[in-house]
């Protein structure tokens, strides 16, 4: 909520814990991609502090605060989780660990995984020992995700996978991939898909980086050429992967949408203007844009709060993730457009720190399902228009 602050014992406990455990170098508020700790088998820590911070946080479950303790989490409810995040921000602390395992695979395993799968895969995610990537999109299956064609044949004692994924973020860095594969090509398209876990070190898996407009190459084409996968790597039912896939997408969308509000996290627009125009603002239209962006940001962040409160109160929140993804990502694009205009020609050079995030923000309304797809989901599922 905005306008009400309630001091709580938990808040003070967390504050004290952060003060004691988060190394000073990790309290520089630097959330830029280059300094994210992703973890994984081959992870090279940028500093001892980064390693220490990960170890201390994961030891008490705070890399995945809402996960159950038995799987490496801290078992926090949504309210406490929010307090924890606010306190991290207050301390200017970096997140100890970020990953697709935390955002996407973990929630899906918690819901659909067998006890053995949960025990095998969740703790390594929580501890930053295993890094995952997402193998959903294919050249012919983007918005129409359910038309994935990557073949997965039952070979009796194992699966055999052949096909190609595209736009696989960090496929070249990840230890494993969760992929949508076709296990029944005769069934209707949604009914023949399975959700498969594949080790990237398996024979026959290869990747090829693709360069983005922002200059970096965080994503790849991923190829599967007669890859053998053990039978117990299907999450959910065989041919029931679409349910897992959709559930995971709601988490992915919430994660992507959160970047937009900037009320918590991103730079305050007031600070942007003060920094860019120390002698005062000549162009009032810039200020107007900032205010409009700010108004929407506040309303969206309150909507996140409201949905949390509603779900804590046992009230349904319907298709919240599609709505938050749509509004949040469109807003994030506006924020970056605004920041670019605010800094003018000072923002135009590579390395100045503005153009890369601006260009990156354009992907927000594409990745995880485009804005148009979000609107179609709302029109169909919420408004029952068809």
């Amino acid at each position, binding site marked *: 909520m905005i306008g*009400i602050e309630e001091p709580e014992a938990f808040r003070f406990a967390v504050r004290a814990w952060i003060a004691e455990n988060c190394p000073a170098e990790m309290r520089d508020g630097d959330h830029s991609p280059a300094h994210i700790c992703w973890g994984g088998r081959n992870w090279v820590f940028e500093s001892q502090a980064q390693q220490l911070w990960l170890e201390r946080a994961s030891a008490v479950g705070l890399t995945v605060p809402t996960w159950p303790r038995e799987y490496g989490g801290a078992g926090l409810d949504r309210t406490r989780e929010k307090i924890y995040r606010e306190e991290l921000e207050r301390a200017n602390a970096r997140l100890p660990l970020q990953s697709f395992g935390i955002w996407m695979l973990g929630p899906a395993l918690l819901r659909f995984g067998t006890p053995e799968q949960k025990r095998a895969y969740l703790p390594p995610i929580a501890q930053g020992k295993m890094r995952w990537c997402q193998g959903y999109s294919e050249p012919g299956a983007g918005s129409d995700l359910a038309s994935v064609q990557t073949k997965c044949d039952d070979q009796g004692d194992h699966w055999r996978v052949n096909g190609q994924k595209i736009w696989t973020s960090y496929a070249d860095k990840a230890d494993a991939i969760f992929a949508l594969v076709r296990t029944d090509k005769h069934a209707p398209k949604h009914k023949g898909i399975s959700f498969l876990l594949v080790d990237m070190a398996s024979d026959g898996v290869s990747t090829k980086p693709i360069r983005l407009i922002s200059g970096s190459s965080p994503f790849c084409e991923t190829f599967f050429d007669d890859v053998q996968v053990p039978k117990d790597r299907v999450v959910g039912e065989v041919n029931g992967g679409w349910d897992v896939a959709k559930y995971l997408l709601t988490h992915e969308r919430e994660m992507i949408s959160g970047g937009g509000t900037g009320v918590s996290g991103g730079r305050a627009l007031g600070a942007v203007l003060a920094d860019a125009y120390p002698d005062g603002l000549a162009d009032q239209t810039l200020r107007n844009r900032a205010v409009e962006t*700010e108004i929407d940001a506040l309303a969206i962040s309150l909507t996140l709060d409201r949905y949390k409160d509603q779900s804590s109160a046992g009230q349904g929140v319907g298709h919240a993730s599609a*709505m938050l993804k749509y509004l949040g990502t469109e807003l994030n694009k506006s924020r970056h457009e605004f920041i670019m205009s605010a800094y003018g020609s000072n923002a135009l050079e590579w390395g100045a720190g503005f153009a890369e995030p601006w260009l990156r923000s354009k992907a927000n309304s594409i990745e995880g399902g485009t804005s148009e797809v979000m609107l179609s989901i709302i029109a169909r599922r919420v408004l029952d228009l068809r």
Partner: protein
Amino acid sequence: MTGLAQTTDETMLVESARSFIDQAAPVSHLRGLRDAGKTYDPDLWAQMVAMGWAGVLIPENAGGSDMGFTAACLLSQEMGKTLASSPFISTAVIAATVFRHAARDKSQKALKEIASGHRIYAMAIDERGKFAPEQVRTYAKSTDKGYELSGSKVFVVDGGFANRLLILARTDEGLTLFDIAADATGVEISPNSMIDSRNAANITLDQVALKSDAIVGSAGKAMKVLAPALHAGQAAVAAEATGLAIAAFDMTIAYLKERTQFGVKIGSFQALQHRAAHLWCEIEATRSALMNAGRVLDQSPQDAGLAVSLAKARAMQTARLAVSEGVQMHGGIGMTDEFDMGFYMKRARVLAEWLGDYGYHAEKIAQARGL
């Protein structure tokens, strides 16, 4: 601390309000008033009074039901859905909050008479086309007996039938709020013919003689009693506009499912689906801002400025979008008087200006957020 989810009690209040309003004040009620050349239905207000709505913000010891600001906003939102016409906001929200912040010995009577329906108040602030309380020029000259008030007011909502007026004026001490009878000598009230078929008036004050006990709060300190009342009123106006937007949206969605062109329902056209879905998202975000404003007013009223301005700013934009999409997606029928959407559009326009437009509140937000 109550969060942003609606409580069970609130849901019950909303449901009972809804069933009462649907029966007593559907849109056809406003249409009927308009066709009869009236802007106010005393019977409808009497029924609202009987249900405790006039006293929603008044303590029980003054005969009120003291349900709080969130409840007042929820009631206002329900009224907005069918454009129910009543002095709820000017009297039960704004005037009641003014008196609640004034010294008890003087305000108790006013509170009792608001709760019992004996007093209907209109708030007279504006003097030009925009809400700007700090720029009020109506002057109250001090005399041996008290004050003499002269000036003119515009857009006094419910001013055509209120029996009491709260007048914001300037004394030598500064901004001062006066509580006067609508029929006092020197007060001339000329009702406006408003686009929304509701009541508003222009008022001229010509040497209106007042005793100093007509001052609410103290001379030069109007904002002490007025600021909380304006916040409450702004939140209630935002709530009415949000209810209006929700209803206009629902009508539009129903029409998309009903109207056939090119052999299919128009709701199957993606161009319309996406616009409808976008509007739904905007309404959801605005509802959050509104709920937050109610909660902050109830739990931390001294900090309500940002929350209230956010709700008002958002609600005005959302209502405007809802009614313009509403007319557009209905095609020709949307433009007809016979169809209700026009009433929503006109009311939304009036609400947009009442107690500060989008720009006014955007400016407040800018200041609060360091822009």
